[in-house]
């Protein structure tokens, strides 16, 4: 794994599988009475959230704490950011406090990249969502969930068909998922009204469709995206009702999926808009599971990044360590 996790494209197929395998073992540990591991004892992880978030922030916090890291949570509300402090000054403050890892969420696309490559801080940077750009750990937890249900919890997702539906334009989840799922061999179809597809989407490694009923039959999974009303400053569709009718997931549509097909949603859901409550709480839904998996995947990411950060300098070595190294220590 490279030094930071800024984009799902940073992960090679082997690295992505290694993260998922690590997460799978960590998931087993979280089933026992003592959930805490001493691995990152003495390390400091800063949650730097310029945008509101509940599940991602809590998920990263739980992940870091289970690995015994010290966690400092910094949210823009009530901080000097609301007094006009810049990203740079905030970063310099964190550096002065000795942050080993910075988990950053920011409203501007590219903020995580800026933080990682500006020279402001030495720690590793994990992108927890930057504007409408990327959210790589969400893609990892989605891939983990898909793998659990579709591939017996191991390997990749070769030949699986995943349909991602809705507000692709404002979704960092969609972009990260398309990149990662393609890396893992899945075939992705994006379904959205033309107004909710970003410019340049035709160059993404996926199929595009405007017709949900045509895309769903036989698919292994459907991922519903939240309609991000707070980012919409123009009329992207005529009415909520019409959106639900054409792009909402109801029971009839969910049953078009393959027999074991699953329904996913990154949350928070607009029940009744992109997904009906009946489907969200139905037997195909793995939405709650996604949240649980998020903690394990983020533990795996922190472990691998902080391990590599000061590692031997040879990223291939850990994966290849055989009996010789193990016996030697």
């Amino acid at each position: 794994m490279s030094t930071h996790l800024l984009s799902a494209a940073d992960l090679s197929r082997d690295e992505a599988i290694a993260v998922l395998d690590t997460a799978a073992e960590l998931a087993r540990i979280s089933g026992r009475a003592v959930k805490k591991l001493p691995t990152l004892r003495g390390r400091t992880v800063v949650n730097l959230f310029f945008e509101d978030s509940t599940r991602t922030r809590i998920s990263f916090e739980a992940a870091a704490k289970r690995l015994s890291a010290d966690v400092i949570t910094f949210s823009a509300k009530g901080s000097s950011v609301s007094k006009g402090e810049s990203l740079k000054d905030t970063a310099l403050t964190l550096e002065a406090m000795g942050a080993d890892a910075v988990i950053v969420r920011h409203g501007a696309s590219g903020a995580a990249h800026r933080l990682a490559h500006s020279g402001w801080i030495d720690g590793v940077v994990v992108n927890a969502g930057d504007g409408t750009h990327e959210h790589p750990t969400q893609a990892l937890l989605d891939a983990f969930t898909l793998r659990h249900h579709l591939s017996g919890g191991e390997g990749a997702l070769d030949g699986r068909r995943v349909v991602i539906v809705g507000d692709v334009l404002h979704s960092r989840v969609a972009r990260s998922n398309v990149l990662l799922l393609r890396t893992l061999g899945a075939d992705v179809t994006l379904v959205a009204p033309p107004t909710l597809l970003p410019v340049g989407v035709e160059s993404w490694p996926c199929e595009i469709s405007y017709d949900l009923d045509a895309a769903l039959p036989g698919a292994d999974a459907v991922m519903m995206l939240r309609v991000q009303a707070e980012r919409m400053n123009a009329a992207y569709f005529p009415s909520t009702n019409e959106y639900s009718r054409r792009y909402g997931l109801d029971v009839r549509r969910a049953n078009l999926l393959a027999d074991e097909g699953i329904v996913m949603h990154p949350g928070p859901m607009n029940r009744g808009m992109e997904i009906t409550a009946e489907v969200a709480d139905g037997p195909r839904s793995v939405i709650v599971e996604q949240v649980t998996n998020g903690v394990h995947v983020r533990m795996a990411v922190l472990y691998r990044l902080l391990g590599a950060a000061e590692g031997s300098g040879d990223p291939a070595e850990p994966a290849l360590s055989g009996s010789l190294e193990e016996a030697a220590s």
Partner: protein
Amino acid sequence: MTAADIPAPTGRPTAIPEGPGGSATPPHPDGARVLDSDDISRILGRISHEILERAHGAQDIVILGIQTRGVPLARRIAERMTDIEGLPVPVGSLDITMYRDDLSLRGARPLHATDVPVDGIDGRLVVLVDDVLFSGRTIRAALDALSDLGRPRAVQLAVLVDRGHRELPLRADYVGKNIPTSRDQAVRVRVQEVDGADEVVVSG
């Protein structure tokens, strides 16, 4: 201990090399083979008997192999003990990766499974099994991992090879073979289940 302690079947090289180019050194692509599969089988049989003798039977014993090569060795010891005692001896695996103290030196490693027998380890005699005892840091980590899993009545340690150079005040209760080495030598244990062959090779 010398190579003479272990009876060698004819044609099987078992001697420890006296030094580079020593005439007793058998030809092996990676170095000198100090234990072959018959030796390892006899050693595991002896350790199984020793554990049972000291514990006065297998009633509350749990065998835990340390990932990766301690695990097949632990399974074989548990099988032998089951054969000897006529009652099943619970066996599991312990992955100590997340308990290592060298993350900042060596980087993240892939994880392996930790499988504790269903009845757990509380109040039991846990025998940890590893392939090579060297610095003792793996065992230190294993003891930490164990304390997160429960509270054994006692913990003992069985190793196939003790190569010396301890960095912590630890010792093994059951040692297959003491092999004096220099620090820069490599002791490679191969087991059938992982590597397709049983042998211990010293190189470097």
